[in-house]
């Protein structure tokens, strides 16, 4: 044990004497600082804008004046995707999901305005976030720090000297790993403290629940990820003959895992499960609304059925004899049918999305970078599942709003009349404003069990690898 600590101490001392390493370490720390600051500023800006616009739209809804409820349902309102507090850590998909949606009767509008559209093609190089630094850049620093951990000892012969002292390979390996972990801890400590402070200071009033446990797990996930990178780097150094080989191998791995594989998987998923165009999607919905989901019950038939149903139920001869305005009922029935049709078609799109993303999850088994990326987005509330959840809540809200308008119309207006009836602010006030709360911690993690498993499996795997190689380690060949 004490040999292990000794080796760790020596490694740390040597690392701090490497000017290139210290220089790169400082750059990483500066970048982490910038990313945290920029993420925070951007979060505050967006939050302010969204809160203000939400209030404006709420006032517009309340002050729309007296009008027929159905016109009010068309006037509608808007929903805006709030930035989550942890988005200051990981922007995730925020630049690529739409930010606002118009809510009105009859139509489900799609989310508009992906922020990436307001950027030149440079945005595709990525935006600097803390997660980018931790996921992409820090592994490189680890590679630079540890590629020669064993090869240097081999090339200079100190490995022989070490082992002639009776130090076990186990102690050398884990001493080195411990040293790199401590160096990273020293580097990252200020950042994580900053993150925890900012996240908790701004967490109230945010759409993201369980910020504390989310932050804790985020830190754990990154600790595991970086630990993996360290162990793999040390293992490869142990297996390589020269530092050059180790460095080249590690850089090749990095390029493959971090740059090539995620892109290739995403692109392949697109080829395997192609999406229809928006035009086809909309045409499909129109077609189903017109001729029914089965293609055989056109709208007129559906309406006639509804009429007979109500006439029989209330035992009256004409619609005007019903105790309420049948138009409100038929309007809502049309709405319900439209919703069903929309759900049917949109489920299809969602299914394609989830098949595409499934490939990514499967890829994460082979690539801890992808696993970490997915988990980080999910915990930060910037992943697709959180966005889908938001979409669902918005749609729920829209349906509630339209239903209330139609019910009011059925209750308070007369059959055959339209402009004669106007509702007012009391009705508008009955509709609460839309406030979004993201899914809880466990709900957010549930779709990512493969990713979690992958990280754990990788830890077990690398420890096993190291154990095996430690046993075989000899300072000379033969």
């Amino acid at each position, binding site marked *: 044990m*004490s040999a292990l600590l000794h080796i760790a101490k*020596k490694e740390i*001392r040597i690392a701090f004497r490497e000017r290139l390493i210290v220089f790169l370490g400082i750059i990483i720390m500066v970048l982490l600082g910038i990313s945290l600051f920029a993420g925070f500023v951007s979060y505050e800006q967006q939050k302010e804008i969204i809160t203000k616009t939400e209030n404006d739209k709420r006032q517009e809804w309340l002050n729309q004046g007296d009008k027929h409820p159905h016109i009010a349902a068309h006037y509608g309102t808007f929903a805006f995707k709030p930035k989550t507090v942890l988005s200051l850590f990981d922007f995730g998909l925020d630049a690529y999901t739409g930010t606002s949606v118009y809510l009105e009767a009859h139509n489900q509008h799609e989310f508009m305005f992906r922020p990436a559209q307001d950027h030149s093609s440079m945005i595709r190089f990525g935006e600097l976030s803390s997660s980018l630094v931790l996921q992409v850049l820090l592994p490189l620093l680890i590679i630079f720090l540890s590629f020669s951990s064993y090869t240097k000892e081999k090339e*200079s*012969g100190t490995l022989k*000297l070490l*082992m002639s002292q*009776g130090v076990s390979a186990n102690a050398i390996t884990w001493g080195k790993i411990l040293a790199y972990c401590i160096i990273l801890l020293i580097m990252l400590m200020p950042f994580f403290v900053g993150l925890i402070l900012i996240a908790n200071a701004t967490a109230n009033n945010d759409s993201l629940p369980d910020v504390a446990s989310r932050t804790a797990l985020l830190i754990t996930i990154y600790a595991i990820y970086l630990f993996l990178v360290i162990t793999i780097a040390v293992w490869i150094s142990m297996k390589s003959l020269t530092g050059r080989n180790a460095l080249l191998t590690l850089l090749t791995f990095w390029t493959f895992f971090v740059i090539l594989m995620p892109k290739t998987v995403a692109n392949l998923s697109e080829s395997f499960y192609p999406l229809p165009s928006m035009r086809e999607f909309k045409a499909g919905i129109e077609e189903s609304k017109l001729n029914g989901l089965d293609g055989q019950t056109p709208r007129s038939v559906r309406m006639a059925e509804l009429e007979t149903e109500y006439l029989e139920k209330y035992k009256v001869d004409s619609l005007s004899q019903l105790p309420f305005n049948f138009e409100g009922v038929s309007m809502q029935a049309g709405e319900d049918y439209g919703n069903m049709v929309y759900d049917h078609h949109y489920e299809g799109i969602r299914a394609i999305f989830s098949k595409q993303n499934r490939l990514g999850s499967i890829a994460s088994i082979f690539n801890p970078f992808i696993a970490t990326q997915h988990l980080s987005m999910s915990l930060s509330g910037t992943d697709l599942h959180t966005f889908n959840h938001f979409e669902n809540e918005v749609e729920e809200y829209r349906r509630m709003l339209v239903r209330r308008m139609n019910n009011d119309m059925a209750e308070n207006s007369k059959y055959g009349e339209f402009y004669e009836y106007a509702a007012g602010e009391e009705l508008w006030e009955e509709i609460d404003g839309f406030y979004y709360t993201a899914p809880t911690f466990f709900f957010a993690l549930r779709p990512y069990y493969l990713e979690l498993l992958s990280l754990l499996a990788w830890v077990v795997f690398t420890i096993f690898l190291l154990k095996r190689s430690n046993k075989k380690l000899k300072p000379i060949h033969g």
Partner: protein
Amino acid sequence: MLKSVNLTKKYGNFTALNELNLSVKEGDIFCLLGANGAGKSTTINLFLNFISPSAGSATINGLDVSKHDKETKQLLSYIPENLMLYPNLTGMENLDFFCGLGNKNYSKQELENLLLQSGLQADFMNRRVSSYSKGMRQKVGIALARAREAKVLLLDEPTSGLDPKASNEFSELLLEMKGNGVATLMATHDLFRAKETGTHIGIMKQGVLIEHFESDEVSFQDLEKMYLKHMHN
């Protein structure tokens, strides 16, 4: 102290060491002579358990090195041909580090004394090893052997490339340790040095120990003749 019985190492069809039997007692300095590739380093590496024997055994203090790695390592100290230390650490720090690994904690003063006794100049102790000459690095190696209070010293051509003065100093240090009862096994090309410092001399050829005698038994001239004779046929 050091003993090998039918120690054999094969790499495929190539026999690097063939049934070596030798023993080195306390206070002995056993010098192995022979051409490059004769099996000298293989012998030392086998005693260090850096490689595993194909047959036979190597024991230190009666313990088989391949079975009692930890225990035997505690008894020995090793200086390779070109002793490399951590270039970014000072001589002092290197010594402190390696002593610490052997669970021997010395004060700064004691470390300084060890280095001084091993002949390292005081003003170099706190400079980085990257500025050291080979002789200075070997001195740190000797200091380390002393610090570890090693009973066995394994040396792989320690004086090759040293200037005569440094070489001399090295020999004196060996003799001093011999006086303390250390058993030394040294592979070397230096016939003169072997005759001067060694108590026993062995000549190896193609993995076989072909001659083995006490150094008092022969004169330097005879040793040289004998050596060249073996090398030529």
